[in-house]
């Protein structure tokens, strides 16, 4: 029965060599100096690890109960098989195969299909202690052979052992198990299998229950599931990664219907592009306040204000304008349902429904208390990545404080803002501020924002009126004026407010001031008219008088002229008469004539 061991023994090494050669071919990275890595396909993890898990080496994934170890392993295999063409083997020491298949089916992993396509091999290793008696030395060649067989069947390059430590509990003589586990790791390495070993963490200061981390020296990933203030957050940390740089922070991760997604936080640097393109805010007067062109594309805008100042309305206007331009908009509503927002906006003449129908506008409405702050962030990320909007609204960010501390909200928003900027997405964040501390945004995020619109209620004359001003707007000239902000049945309007001795006037006070001013103007106009008429009248009188005077003058002139001519006539008659007298007296006519004439004139 035991004949021909040579032929039997020759089999596995041959497989191993073949595999190694295949792997070397496949794993040749562009830079030969970096450690070859196997992409996990898990969202975000490859970014933190700089490419994935160490290829051909074991990685330990440790975590408490329910921290997502098994899922991590399965996703590693499923993604490997579906995205990277690397088949895998899953050795389950705990869960039965049908249970496993059912559990991950809800995450969209079809294990049965992958098994049928020979991309995946799932084996359940069950060791029940009651069936054992120990009678001497043994080794785990049985397990090795099973693994080798499974690897051979699908030509696996990846393998997951979940949870290997079950061996310690179920097999006698831990000393032998320990030695065998060490041998197993060496063997897996020798075979060039990229391995994920899961282990349960039962104490905070230990990674695994039986200390197998000492055999896995290449990469250790810790999964954590913690509850704080009744809200759970999953976190992932790379404890060590030999031969590779890696992110060292605790990264939040999420398990949802698409598997695991890890959010790399610190991998984002401040190197996003700064577009000069402007986008309209949807309110022409507001665009006017912002240098006449609106916001910068890709900038973040904070609309903060007390309750009922129209923050959501401003956001809706912006969304409406974006959809009109044919851009896609994503609306995160943390307070109202989409239907409610659509209804409310219709009352001021903004109809968002057609945009929803056209697929240009998507709402994502959920109470942030649904999950931890990290979950909210991850969901936001995922939604943004899948929808690829050019405009995003987060309404309001302050609701996030319900689930977390201010510090965490700020760091989350920093990450979100960075992410949105890298994507070139223009975003409006609304923020509810408590009355009295208007210029301090609740989550203290103002320094992250490029443009800050402050909305406030001004209380004058027994009424509250909305006012808006641009508190800051980086990189553009902007108005320093307060504008009154009026919601009417056909839209949102910004009006000038009155600044007088009594302060800012809005609403009825503004209207009455306007009327007062109108009255003054009318009065002045009337006065002017009266004066003009008076002037006209005076001119007419003057002209009439002028005519009269001229008539008088002319009359007098005529008289005088007549007198003059009469006098002249008279003078000549005298000279003639005298001449005749001289003639008649026989005097010297010529000399007398001259003298007589000269003497006559002065006498007149």
């Amino acid at each position, binding site marked *: *029965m*035991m004949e*021909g*061991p040579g032929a*039997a*023994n020759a*089999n*596995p090494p041959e497989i191993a060599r073949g595999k190694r050669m295949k792997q070397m071919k496949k794993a040749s990275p562009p830079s030969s100096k970096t450690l070859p890595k196997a992409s996990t396909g898990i969202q975000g993890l490859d970014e933190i690890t700089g490419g994935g898990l160490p290829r051909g080496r074991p990685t330990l994934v440790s975590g408490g109960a329910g921290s997502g170890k098994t899922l991590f392993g399965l996703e590693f295999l499923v993604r490997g098989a579906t995205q990277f063409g690397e088949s895998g083997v899953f050795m389950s020491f705990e869960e039965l195969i049908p249970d496993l298949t059912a559990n991950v089916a809800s995450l969209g992993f079809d294990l049965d299909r992958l098994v049928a396509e020979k991309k995946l091999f799932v*084996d359940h*290793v*069950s*060791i029940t202690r009651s*069936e*054992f*008696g*120990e*009678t*001497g*030395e*043994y*080794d*785990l*060649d*049985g*397990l*090795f*052979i*099973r693994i*080798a*067989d499974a690897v051979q069947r699908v030509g696996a390059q990846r393998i997951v052992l979940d949870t290997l430590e079950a*061996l310690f509990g179920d*097999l*006698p003589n831990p000393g032998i198990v320990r030695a065998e586990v060490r041998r197993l790791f060496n063997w897996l390495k020798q075979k060039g299998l990229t391995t994920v070993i899961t282990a349960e963490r039962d104490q905070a200061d230990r990674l695994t229950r039986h200390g197998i981390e000492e055999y896995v020296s290449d990469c250790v990933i810790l999964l954590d599931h913690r509850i704080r203030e009744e809200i759970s957050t999953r976190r992932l940390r790379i404890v060590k990664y030999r031969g590779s740089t890696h992110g060292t922070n605790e990264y939040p991760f999420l398990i949802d219907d698409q598997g695991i997604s890890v959010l790399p936080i610190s991998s984002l640097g401040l190197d996003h592009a700064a577009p000069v393109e402007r986008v309209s805010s949807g309110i022409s007067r507001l665009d006017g306040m912002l240098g006449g062109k609106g916001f910068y594309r890709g900038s973040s805008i904070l609309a903060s204000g007390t309750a009922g100042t129209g923050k959501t309305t401003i956001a809706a206007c912006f969304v409406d304008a974006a959809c009109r331009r044919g851009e896609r908009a994503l609306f995160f509503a943390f307070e109202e349902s989409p239907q409610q927002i659509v209804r409310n906006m219709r009352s001021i003449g903004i109809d968002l429904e057609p945009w929803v129908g056209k697929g240009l506008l998507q709402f994502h409405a959920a109470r942030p208390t649904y999950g931890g702050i990290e979950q909210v962030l991850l969901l936001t990320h995922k939604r943004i990545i899948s929808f690829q909007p050019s405009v995003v609204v987060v309404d309001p960010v302050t609701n996030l404080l319900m689930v977390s501390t201010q510090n965490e909200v700020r760091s989350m928003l920093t990450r979100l803002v960075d992410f949105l900027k890298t994507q070139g997405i223009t975003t409006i964040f609304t923020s509810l501020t408590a009355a009295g501390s208007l210029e301090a945004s609740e989550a203290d995020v103002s320094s992250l924002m490029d443009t800050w619109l402050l909305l406030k209620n001004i209380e004058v004359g027994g009424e509250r009126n909305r006012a808006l001003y641009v508190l800051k707007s980086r990189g553009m000239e902007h108005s320093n004026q307060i504008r009154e902000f009026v919601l009417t049945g056909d839209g949102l309007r910004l009006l000038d407010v009155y600044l007088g001795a009594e302060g800012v006037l809005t609403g009825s006070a503004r209207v009455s001031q306007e009327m007062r001013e109108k009255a003054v103007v009318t009065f002045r106009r009337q006065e002017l008219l009266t004066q003009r008429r008076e002037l006209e009248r005076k001119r007419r009188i003057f002209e009439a008088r002028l005519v009269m005077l001229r008539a008088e003058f002319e009359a007098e002139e005529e008289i005088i002229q007549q007198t003059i001519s009469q006098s002249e006539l008279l003078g000549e008659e005298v000279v003639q008469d005298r001449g005749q007298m001289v003639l008649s007296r026989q005097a010297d006519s010529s000399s007398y004539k001259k003298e007589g004439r000269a003497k006559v004139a002065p006498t007149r």
Partner: protein
Amino acid sequence: MPTTKTKTRAQPHKRDLRKPVAWNLRLYVAGQTPKSVRAFANRKAMCEEHLKGGYPIEVIDLRKNPQLARGDQIVAIPTLVRRLPLPLQMIVGDLPNSVLLLVGLDLRKVA
């Protein structure tokens, strides 16, 4: 032997029950390692001693038939599986200590 007789008498019902039942023993090994060889030798000796050679042991070399390891959930090598009579019993190790083995397999010496 007189000693055997007393033992037989001590558990008469067990003997009677077991008599008509067929035995099915399987020894899983992996190639001809010293451990496997030792286990097989021990097993053979045991069977000849206790079962008078009437019950052959099926030796399965997992190097030749690796898929068989899955059926009986073999992890450790060598493993002796008593498939019949029920319940299923598994004994791990190269079996140097026949007392432990006997207890494990619920076997007693036969005359």
